[in-house]
């Protein structure tokens, strides 16, 4: 069985590469569809589009009950109630709404306080003005693009060849795009912390790509595939350790912010494995084949 897989991996790398590109295209399609149907290519949470979040620590609350009560009382507001769990237990209840003005928020807050008999210690309020949320979002997109550009330049300087730089950037781009599409499918709303998580993905993606590219391109000992396998060994250890830490955090952490970061990292790391060892390997192998062919033609 293993030999069969190894065979496919070594001989049919071009097919596998097409498969990875297919995933990328599917992801782009998902994002496109999302854009057409909702007007936005991701689900933006309160911190990215403006509004407020009231987080309640009193867990003996029926969130559905609270939601219908609030929707009835404030029919025009966009309100959603969700639960935050840790290790299987509910630890927080969060009420998101588009209320930004103090008065609106206070009305909402007093309705909740009254209904559930809360005290000051039981809740926290976070308000984000919509203009700030929007501008923040726009600026992080700019930051991500800047990060990509700088990354390409650094890799270019390191390898002095365009192909590896292109491969690393493509891999990071694929990582983020596919992770974004998968995240969209979960229906969770993205927050500012989530945006930071996507940037972290860039860092992790680069790590594994650099190991791969360096070993494939700058080392000359042994056949290429052997070097690829040694990179896989190193890379998978790296990814596994991070995955393990991320899963532990995902299960036990109580903070929603960190949960979202961990979830995005989890998705991103898994996607990175596919993209690095199928897509990136494929691109570099194509390049090496072409170099070899050129060499052979010249020698002949």
């Amino acid at each position, binding site marked *: 069985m293993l030999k069969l897989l190894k065979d496919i991996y070594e001989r049919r790398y071009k097919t596998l590469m097409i498969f990875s590109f297919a995933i990328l295209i599917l992801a782009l399609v998902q994002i496109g569809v999302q854009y057409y149907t909702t007007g936005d290519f991701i689900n933006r949470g309160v911190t990215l589009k403006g509004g407020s979040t009231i*987080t309640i620590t009193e867990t003996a609350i029926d969130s559905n009950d609270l939601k219908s009560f609030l929707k009835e009382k404030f029919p025009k507001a966009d309100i959603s109630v969700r639960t935050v769990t840790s290790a299987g237990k509910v630890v927080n209840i969060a009420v998101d709404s588009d209320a930004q003005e*103090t008065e609106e928020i206070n009305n909402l807050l007093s309705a909740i306080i009254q209904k559930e008999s809360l005290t*000051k*210690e039981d*809740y*926290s*309020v*976070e*308000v*984000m*003005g919509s*203009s*700030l949320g929007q*501008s*923040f979002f*726009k*600026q992080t997109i*700019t*930051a991500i693009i*800047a*990060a990509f550009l*700088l*990354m390409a*330049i*650094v890799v270019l300087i*390191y390898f002095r060849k365009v192909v590896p730089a292109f491969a690393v950037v493509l891999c990071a781009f694929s990582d983020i795009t596919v992770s974004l599409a998968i995240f969209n499918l979960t229906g969770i709303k993205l927050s*500012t*912390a989530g*945006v*930071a998580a996507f*940037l*972290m993905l860039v*860092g*992790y993606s*680069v*790590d*594994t790509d*650099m*190991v791969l590219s*360096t070993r494939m391109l700058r*080392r000359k000992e042994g056949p290429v595939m052997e070097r690829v396998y*040694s990179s896989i*060994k*190193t890379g998978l*250890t*790296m990814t*596994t*350790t*991070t995955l*393990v*830490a991320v*899963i*532990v*955090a995902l299960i*036990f*952490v*109580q*903070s929603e912010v*960190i949960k979202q*970061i961990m979830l995005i990292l989890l998705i991103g790391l898994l996607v990175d494995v596919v993209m690095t060892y199928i897509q990136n390997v494929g691109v570099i192998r194509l390049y090496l084949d072409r170099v070899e062919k050129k060499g052979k033609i010249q020698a002949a």
Partner: protein
Amino acid sequence: MKTKIKKIFTHWRVIILLLFVIFSLVAIQPHFSNQGAAIRNVVQNSSASLARIENPSPKLTPLAKERIIALDGKKVLSAADYYDLITKVQENDTINVQTNKRSYSLLATANDLGRVDLGLKVYDAPTSNLRKGLDLEGGTRVLLKPTEEISQEDFDSILDNLRERLNVYGLSDIVVRPASDLAGDNFILIEIAGITEEEIKELLAKQGKFEAKIGNETVFLGGKKDITYVCRSADCSGIDPRKGCAKSSRGYSCGFFFSISLSPEAAERQAQATKDLDTQNEDGGCFLSESMYLYLDDKEVDSLRIGCELKGSASTSIQISGGGSGTTQQEAVAVALQNMKKLQTVLITGSLPVKLDVVKLDTISPSFGKEFMSNVALIAVLALGAVALVVSIRYRRAGVVIPMVLTLVTEMTMLLGFAALVGWNLDLAAIAGIIVAVGTGVDHLIIIADEAMKGAAVVYDWKTKIKNAMFIVMGAYFTVLSGMLPLLWAGAGLLKGFALTTIAGFSFGVLIARPAYAVVIEILMRESN
């Protein structure tokens, strides 16, 4: 084995690492057994300030803050203890407050709401020099934006003004700093730790333009230029003894008063404005034909009749009065005194050059923070354990695994030490940055270990092996660095804490901890090859 260990600890890279770690521990100064209630603020003119308890300077490190350890001989182990014991104190009792510095004798007085309040705001004593941000300690974070374009000078004066307003109001543990985003907009970020009252928002966003007019002429404005002194002590401010409190249609209303002193110029203007007015004799006494109207943010807040003796006289002493109402007398008193305090603050600090919009407001209850901290600590330990497990399975050599785990711990320590030294507030963003730095730390250590373990089949010498590994590490370092730099400015610095901790953690790791690990691995593995 002994020679190997000696070699390790005498290598300069390891020595540097150890120095940094020791330095970090000194900066953090963990004091896990610290108990008591640390003093955050001393309210002005309270029994505490009269007993000469010092208001802690914001520049003090957390561990240097004075801690209350006993009240009248009863032990105070936490902030909850303090507030609990206070409820059992009677008004006019003399209490002995013992801190870790000395003993104070205080007279218990009742505050505006009739409860005993010594004028001390306390919080659980810090166990290290790490400053906890709002997400961990609870408090209020406000992001303000000027409604119009203003010059840099005006912007700076707004910052000073806000700081002063908050200080005058009795808050010292505050952060007021400018923030900007990539679009070039300027914001003001204010963070106030501890539970705060709703007035903070009012206090900060109101422009606070105060004017006193006689007829149509402005006689004086708020601020030090015109007003040289504002009385806040009990002998010339408080509930007006002549008006007191009275029942009104909707409950009660109470009147307050306080005296102020004008500068000679303002007094002269007053003299000019009054010298041509007529006098009118009424049953209350003799008054001038025009009253003095007080405006706050263009709204009339009070009008004062001017006594005849002030006609044409450059009197520098004036009494300001106003009121407040509530459903009960107690509430009316509280509201009146609150209004008085607001007016006093505005008169002392003057007005802001432009109106500010509240763009973002977070209030975080402290109980959130406490649970969060212990949750994070638990996860850090679990995650470290899980990572150690995976690495042990892969490498099966203690010589590789143990230094790896230790190196990770040193990276975390150095990062926290740096945060303590620089006085960073650790908040969620910072913690996320720590996660990233440590996460990539593991990755790079694995890269180094793998390169080092390439056995006899490869004829590379150690220098080249380590060079190869560090090449990859440095490449990743520069790439991530360039990714984080734009974040320092994006979005009014909301992710600044994250970018900074990531960059700092990465730098400490790549420049100090990871090369040291490479050295350790080399020494441990070399002779066994």
